[in-house]
């Protein structure tokens, strides 16, 4: 496994050079060059280093290798990702400016905010690429061994039950509330502590400042593997490869839990069909490429391919799922 990691990769450089030379020879007089003709930018609405950024770098790495054209990641954080999304929606639809679509600027945002400065239909969906499943966790030395025990404890003593969330309207806001409601806990009596992101929320859990969290796989994995926090259940149809001993939510007795973080690729409106098709085909091939899958597992992402229509359908269903939840939790603005 480590061999491929430590091997210097010169192949892409050679591929770029070869592709350029080849193109110059073949297509010099041709007017209609095949997409992509030049550098492609994937805009990320968040700072480097987060879940969205990591997914964008997975995609850009694979695409530049396959196409021999540079596909770069541009981070444009601001207004919870809305600035970047708006910018791409107004970009020229020639396929050279795309953006990393993510629950936080799509279904989950539209569920929690009524005046988003763009419409979901404004984006051209290309493909769903990754899932980042929710994992419910407690501190390593917590007395609670199962999700049921957490539910019992929270019901018995809601006033002293403290949980950390990595953002006001982030995945955890939905995942933890969904669990508490499912368990019949009087939510308004509990102590909700909001942090600036998944990492600080889980650090607070590891330090014993809160008792429970429901962040995503990519955020929780290092601390779980390092035995600072303990996983109780994962919201996914199957168990995760890094945690074969952690039961699914269904196995843990909560089949109704279904909050998930995801990342995909979208573009500006009126994106040409051939661009959409080419990307969707590439990402479908990636979802079956063992090397790509292994790379994704290393950054704790589940690869799930959905083509343009299925991706659009998925976003609609997600919105329908979160809308009543957002109202119930009281975060819809």
């Amino acid at each position, binding site marked *: 496994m480590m061999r491929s*990691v*430590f*091997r*210097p*990769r*010169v192949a*892409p*450089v050679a591929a770029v050079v070869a592709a350029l030379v080849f193109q110059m020879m073949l297509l010099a007089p041709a007017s209609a060059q095949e997409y992509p003709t030049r550098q492609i930018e994937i805009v990320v609405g968040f*700072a*480097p*280093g987060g879940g969205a950024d*990591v997914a964008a*770098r997975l995609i*850009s*790495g694979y695409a530049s*290798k396959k196409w021999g054209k540079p596909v*770069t*990641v541009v981070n*444009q*954080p*601001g*207004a*919870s990702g*809305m*600035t970047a999304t*708006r910018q791409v929606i107004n970009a020229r639809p020639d396929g050279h400016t795309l953006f990393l679509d993510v629950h936080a600027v799509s279904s989950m945002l539209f569920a*929690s905010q009524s005046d988003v*400065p763009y419409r979901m239909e404004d984006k051209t969906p290309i493909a769903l690429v990754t899932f980042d499943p929710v994992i419910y966790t407690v501190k390593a030395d917590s007395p609670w061994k199962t999700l049921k025990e957490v539910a019992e404890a929270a019901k018995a003593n809601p*006033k*002293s039950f*403290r949980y950390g969330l990595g953002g*006001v*309207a982030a995945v955890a806001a939905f995942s933890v509330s969904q669990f508490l409601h499912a368990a019949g806990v009087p939510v308004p009596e509990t*102590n*909700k*502590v*909001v*942090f*600036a992101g998944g*990492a*600080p929320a889980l*650090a*607070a859990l*590891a*330090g*014993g*400042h809160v008792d429970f969290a429901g962040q995503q796989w990519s955020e929780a*994995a*290092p*601390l779980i*593997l*390092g*035995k*600072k926090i303990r996983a109780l259940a994962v919201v996914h149809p199957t168990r995760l490869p890094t945690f074969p001993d952690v039961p699914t939510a269904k196995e843990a007795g909560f089949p109704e839990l279904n909050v998930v973080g995801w990342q995909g690729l979208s573009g500006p409106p009126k994106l040409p069909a051939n661009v959409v098709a080419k990307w969707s085909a590439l990402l479908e091939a990636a979802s079956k490429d063992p090397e790509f899958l292994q*790379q994704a597992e*290393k*950054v*704790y992402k589940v690869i799930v391919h959905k083509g343009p229509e299925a991706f659009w359908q998925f976003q609609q269903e997600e919105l329908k799922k979160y809308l009543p939840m957002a109202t119930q939790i009281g*975060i819809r*603005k």
Partner: protein
Amino acid sequence: MDALNHLLAGFGEALTWQNLLFALFGTVLGTLVGVLPGVGPTSGIAILLPLTAFLPPTPAIIMLAAIYYGAMYGGSTTAILVNIPGEVASVVTTLDGYQMARQGRAGPALAIAAISSFVAGTLGLVGLTFFAPALADLALRVGPPEYFGLVVLAFSVVVSLSGASLLKGLAAGALGILVALVGLDPQSGVRRFSLGTAELLGGIDFIAVIVGLFAIAEVLLAVERRAAAVSLAPIGRLMPSWADIKRCTGAMLRSTGIGFALGMLPGCTPGAISFVAYDVERRVSPSRAQFGQGAIEGVAAPEGANNATTSAGFVPLLALGLPSTPALAVLLSGLQIYGLQPGPLLFEKQPAFVWAVIASMYIGNVMLLVLNLPLVGLWARLVHVPYAVMGPMILVFSVVGAFSVRNTLFDVGVAVAFGVIGYVMTRLGYPTAPMVLALILTPLGESALRQTLSMAGGSPVLLATRPLAALFIVIGVALTAWSLVARRKRPEAFESTG
């Protein structure tokens, strides 16, 4: 001495010509990124991140880490020469560094910044080498109540930074708080002062404010006073005298301690830490009356604190996978691309890699010292460059720097607006340092306080029952009282500061 053996093995790996080359490249680039106002280590690392597709992990991470700590060396250069902090953490360095440059002592100021950075950076690495996993566990025990205590403690610095008029200092601090409140409420998501625009909803970017308050305002002021150059005084000696170094030894060691201890906490920002180190020095130094007028300890302390903080930041990053600054978050994603997930298992599973990177940081710090000291002569001469050349260049870099943070023109507008605000403030005798400090501390303090309240069902009881939190608050209040009493007794000592 397990750690020592590992470290020696790490040196073996770090001293290969390939790894040395990447360390050198990273330190040079880091220095450059640090020198340019606005362009920080975050963008520096992000720009080079795609190189990871071609490089093996060890040289790549050595290079990216070198950019990070190299930027801390470079950040002081423009702070001293032209009153423009290259990084947030160098804001404090402007207070005494720029005064030294105007007096023709740019050389010793730059040199002591490099030396102090080297001493603190290296001592910080010793801490990282021998105690990382143990210290990381300690850092986790610091939670919201303790962070709020630290913010109260740090806010006490506002009083001592206030200069001649306490009222004006507090007013500047209050303005900083107001600016920091723009955007989404961190606990409930309520919109504050966003005027219905998406740009303001994201908050006012800190870098853009600093670029405006310092760089653009300074150009306006210089043009107004028809400055021919930063300093007309002859460039005296370039290196500090032995007496200077002796004077600064205590400052370097104290700032290392403060910088390392606070730098380990993932929730503390380096900007605030250098303010605290500066303030401590001002209180204990025998030459405290000179602070703000070109005291060499006033340069040594913040620069030392910055670099100790940088070394300390690798403790939670490597041992827990927790980045304490945006730049370290990018570095984290670099590690993840290689499947090297930082966390408690990294030291066990990838010892060769971790120790090679740590060893390379010792080497990188030496490189930075060797690189920066000869440059002092060149930089110091910049103070004589005609302002007609210098001013426009500063403006160009300011605009580029403000734009590059989030790639939006909005931030350029923010920088220009704060340039005007900074100009007006200086003309009216309002110090800008308390505003910057308040701007850094407010988000941290607000979140910490409200998290503390949420942890106990809305009651502030934890601030009293958690011993460390209570201790910090008591010290903060005591320091404020001390400053107020000192101010009343010797008002002349505060005349020219700020």
